[in-house]
């Protein structure tokens, strides 16, 4: 461990980050990443962030991070959102695969995949869900049979976020169906697959808002080198659970994003002369309180992590809270937009709107639908409630197979 990080260290770093962001953040918001042109611009931004050394400041320097520790990392995130910098696009790589590789990957795998992932030279997506395996993830059937130095993969993944834009997928595949018949969590392997391999077909799926943010992925006799297995063969469930832990747990610093969103909500209330409307104030106050509470929680978890404490038991509680809070923010926002909330399209659709309304309106529908998705992905909130009641509260298991 390095020397303890002092408040002064954090503030010095914060000032440096703020200066860099002021010079580098695009003046105009980038177009949405769900269209190719917008995606390429987001990817270029990620490259700039990487070159500046800010792609993941808490990661080891050997991979392009800065070993900055949790507190500086949170300061970075706070500044990032304050500056209105673009949405991060390589979430599967950045928040899920990267941490998983650092925990389970071999040094060769880390060296091979992490720097490219961090620079956004490769975009990663997660291949867990299948048409017949959603909440009951361990029932998955995508098959990987060993053939010499390769696995031959056949099957299908679905609801794959960013699938249409990704270069690689980290997938759960069944390598030992026999073991799986006794206990379905056994015989599963965590396998990284190049989506440009022969036999892979990615079919983008249009989402509820019409964008092509996710996809289904088909594998037909796809040959994958055995060295692409992360963790132990047939023991991929543990790796998957670790991934889901990262997906559910706190993204340290993202409280700043939600505080910004609530400030946009307040700007809307102000611009639309709702500042004496007790209903609007009640609604704004409710989500404002939630974001303050969430910030306290993020700092609590960070302190626990810094002290070497475990966060596994907190991940499900965290997920239920932040996904509901996120939903409440944008649900409130769209309702406060009243008739304007029922209009979509480019700003020309709202020719008479004030700037605060336009700013909020142009983002909120996308954010709203993402919030709805977040209550489903990473294990539905109903699954989280099962986990909380059984593993945190110790209530008896529901009879299940």
């Amino acid at each position, binding site marked *: 461990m390095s020397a303890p990080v002092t408040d002064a260290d954090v503030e010095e770093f914060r000032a440096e980050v703020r200066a860099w962001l002021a010079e580098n953040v695009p003046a105009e918001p980038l177009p949405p990443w769900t269209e190719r042109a917008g995606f390429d611009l987001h990817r270029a931004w990620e490259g700039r962030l990487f070159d500046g050394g800010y792609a993941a400041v808490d990661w080891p320097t050997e991979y392009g991070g800065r070993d900055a520790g949790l507190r500086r990392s949170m300061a970075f995130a706070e500044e990032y959102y304050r500056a209105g910098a673009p949405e991060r696009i390589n979430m599967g790589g950045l928040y899920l695969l990267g941490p998983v590789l650092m925990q389970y990957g071999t040094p060769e795998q880390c060296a091979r995949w992490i720097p490219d992932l961090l620079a956004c030279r490769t975009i990663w997506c997660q291949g867990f869900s299948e048409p017949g395996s959603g909440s009951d993830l361990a029932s998955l059937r995508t098959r990987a049979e060993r053939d010499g130095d390769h696995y031959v993969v056949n099957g299908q993944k679905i609801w794959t976020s960013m699938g249409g834009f990704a270069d690689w997928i980290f997938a759960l595949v069944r390598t030992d169906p026999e073991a799986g018949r006794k206990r379905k969590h056994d015989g599963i392997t965590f396998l990284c697959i190049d989506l440009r391999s022969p036999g892979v077909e990615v079919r983008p799926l249009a989402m509820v808002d019409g964008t092509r943010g996710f996809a289904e992925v088909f594998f037909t006799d796809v040959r994958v080198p055995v060295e692409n297995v992360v963790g132990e063969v047939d023991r991929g469930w543990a790796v998957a659970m670790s991934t889901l832990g990262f997906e559910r747990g706190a993204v340290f610093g993202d409280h700043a994003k939600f505080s910004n969103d609530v400030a946009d909500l307040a700007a809307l209330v102000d611009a639309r002369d709702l500042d004496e409307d007790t209903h609007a*104030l009640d609604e704004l*106050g409710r989500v*404002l*309180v939630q974001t303050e509470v969430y910030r*306290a*929680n993020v700092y609590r978890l960070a302190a626990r992590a810094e002290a070497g404490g475990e966060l596994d038991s907190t991940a499900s509680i965290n997920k239920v809270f932040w996904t509901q809070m996120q939903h409440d923010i944008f649900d409130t926002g769209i309702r406060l937009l009243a008739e304007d909330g029922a209009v979509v399209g480019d700003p020309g659709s709202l020719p008479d709107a004030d700037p605060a309304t336009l700013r909020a309106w142009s983002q909120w529908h996308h954010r709203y639908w993402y919030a709805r998705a977040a209550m489903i992905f990473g294990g539905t909130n109903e699954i989280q409630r099962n986990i909380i*009641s059984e593993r945190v509260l*110790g209530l008896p298991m*529901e009879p299940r197979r």
Partner: protein
Amino acid sequence: MTPHDTLDQDRRELVELTDDLLGRHCDLDFLRARIDDGTAHTPGLWGRLAETGLVSALVAEEHGGAGLTPAHLSGVLHSLGRHAVPEPYLETAVLAATVLDALPGPVADTWLPRIAAGDAVVVVRLGELTPLLPYAADADLLLDVADDGAVRAFAADELEVTPVPALDPLRPLGRVVLTGAGTEVGDDGAVVARTRTLALSGAACLLAGASQRLLDLTVEYVAVREQFGRPVGSFQAVKHKAADLAVMVDMATAAALSAFDAADEPDGPRRAAAAKAYAGEAAARANVDALQLHGGIGFTWEYHLHIWLKRVMGLAASYGTTTALRRDLARELVARVGQERRG
């Protein structure tokens, strides 16, 4: 060891000390006896709290206290909430000690040692925040903190206290009319802000603790109560209610403890208001779900759930309601953002 490590350890020890003391001297039989007697505060329990040093924690060493900071006491307040302690700890040991410590003079010199020794109940009136004063009828002294920072002290014979029949019999309330002239204690605007912040965040800690107890009682009950041949706590409808409550109670605890610890930070007042608002929201959920999941037994006088149902209702109504605090916070943010928009 950095000072922070010591703080964490001190906190843990204080919570253990409090839990141990209350487990022995503030159990269900004791609370029952208080309800039957119609007396909440007793010199006995208050004396024990004082003997352990909990009452004098914030009092400076020169006045016989331990000279600790509020950051030491958030967990203690949470524990007091879990045990439904019928004593004016927040009012006397936190708020009164804070006011007097900030305003040195003859009043502080007389009363701080008495507070530290457990010989006095001192309550603090905070303008519109306290239309009803907890433990007013037990008070030996009242500190009236005006909004402009002027603080005056009123002895018991300078007060006319009308007890109000309180929903929570273990947390008595009174209406107070000042009949005497009182004594000037001092004048300091910063004291008002700090005392209000500690009142709100302290009440949030008590409330989070009491809500935690409602959750604990409920989880214990549904794990053993059987229907249809299995514990009701194995049914998803029950488990999901308990899980949602656990999320809210855990988050309320995080916000309350950190707000109390951060009372002296620049954003302390905002954090305290948010913590109290959310603690009230979580407590309302705890109140509804705990009784619902207990069913008939929870509705009886004989079973003890009602002690905490009433405790959370009383505390949620005290030191700022969720609705009022949300509106205040929203107004403040709209004003700030509006100012920024207009440059």
